[in-house]
């Protein structure tokens, strides 16, 4: 039993790590095409891209340990006998190491999830007491110009009175349209899922890819607001709010000057060139889905043989060192 669980844990972790590294390395090649898509499609595809290493590693490892599926996807071969089999680590110590490692990773993910959830609840509780409900959003009596959507399952919109007073009715409508899009799309949850699925790599390695996801997500909400108010109006509001935020330097963190992501500039340019963005058709989505299925199916055979090769190499190494 320990050997089976340990093998499962080791294969899943190893594959998750390998696929994550591979996806980070391949990303610069795919990035230009992904960023040419309509942000609504681009953000969905980017999310799928960053979730795939985790999902594919877990699914293919599960298939590897399910005899009927494994028989279909792995070419028949014999070791001592010719029965259908899953790769198995012989050494209990190695299997235990796999279990410990997997437990550590799952605990780390769970801890990260729980601490973020706790922080979110604390903020909700505070803002619900201190804010005033205005229909679908909450107004916060504060001078700083700030608006944000907080939460995962039922996100709420909070807007400072400083920002509301500085906005025209149209600006406010655009801002609320943008935030409502975050609310409906559950973007905070999407970002959390992507971040957790890439947690096996150190943060600096996956930072650029996840920053792209965040940027395209913002663009998707800008485009949603533009469907109602027009691209130019949204671009103008973005610029106006950015100017307003920058005109209050006391609000900026001291180290903000070193932070050089050109977020608003990219978003305004995206809005002005909205017509150039490519929308995927239904058959293209189906083709991508089929491609994902084929990728998963073809992964199982090499995974089986690769795992057996690694296990036997580790076994030989252990025997030699003894």
């Amino acid at each position: 039993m320990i050997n089976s669980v340990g093998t499962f844990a080791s294969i899943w972790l190893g594959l998750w790590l390998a696929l994550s590294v591979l996806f980070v390395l391949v990303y610069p090649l795919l990035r230009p095409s992904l960023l040419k898509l309509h942000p609504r499609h681009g953000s969905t595809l980017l999310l799928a891209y960053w979730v795939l290493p985790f999902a594919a590693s877990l699914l293919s490892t599960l298939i590897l340990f399910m005899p009927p599926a494994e028989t279909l996807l792995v070419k028949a071969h014999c070791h001592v006998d010719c029965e259908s089999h899953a790769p198995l680590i012989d050494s209990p110590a190695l299997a235990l190491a796999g279990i410990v490692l997997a437990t550590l990773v799952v605990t780390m993910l769970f801890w990260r999830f729980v601490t973020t959830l706790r922080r979110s609840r604390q903020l909700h509780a505070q803002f619900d007491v201190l804010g005033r409900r205005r229909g679908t959003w909450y107004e916060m009596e504060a001078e700083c110009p700030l608006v944000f959507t907080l939460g995962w399952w039922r996100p709420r919109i909070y807007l400072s009175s400083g920002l509301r007073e500085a906005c025209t009715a149209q600006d406010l409508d655009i801002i609320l349209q943008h935030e409502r899009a975050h609310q409906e799309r559950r973007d905070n949850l999407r970002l959390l899922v992507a971040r957790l699925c890439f947690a096996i790599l150190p943060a600096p390695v996956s930072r650029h890819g996840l920053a792209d996801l965040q940027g395209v997500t913002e663009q998707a909400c800008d485009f949603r607001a533009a469907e109602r108010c027009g691209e130019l109006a949204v671009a103008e509001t973005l610029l106006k709010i950015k100017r307003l935020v920058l005109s209050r330097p006391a609000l900026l963190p001291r180290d903000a000057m070193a932070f050089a992501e050109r977020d608003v500039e990219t978003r305004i340019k995206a809005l002005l060139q909205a017509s150039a963005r490519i929308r995927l058709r239904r058959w293209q989505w189906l083709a991508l889905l089929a491609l994902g299925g084929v990728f998963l199916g073809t992964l199982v055979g090499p995974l089986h043989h690769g795992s057996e090769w690694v296990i036997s190499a580790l076994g030989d190494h252990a025997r030699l060192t003894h």
Partner: protein
Amino acid sequence: MLPNTLGELELGVLEALWQEPHLDAKAICQRIPAIRQPSLSTVQSTLERLHRKELVTRSKTGHAYSYAPRVSRSNLLGRLMGDIIHLLHDGRLETILSSFVTVAADLDDKSLADLEALIARKKQEQGRAP
């Protein structure tokens, strides 16, 4: 962690004091909504915590302390918003909240003027220029 994080009861006590300052613990306890009615000793320890955090002042009247808020509602909200701005900037809150524009000083005056010109040009192209 948020430097200005307050618990639900702490906020309830502050809310009671904002509505009517200079109250003792017993009076505050009675003003907290019945659904979460805490015991007197819980309110006293909450007041002690708020005093340590310098969010309330107290003066002795007879045997009991009388409490008053040291910060206004908007002042506390301003502090909380400041925390949000800092944490957004650090990227530590990005998975629980999304903001319309970032506070990062990533654009100088020239870039802003360039963007403005770009929007104006687009407007002209669309024949909507004034």
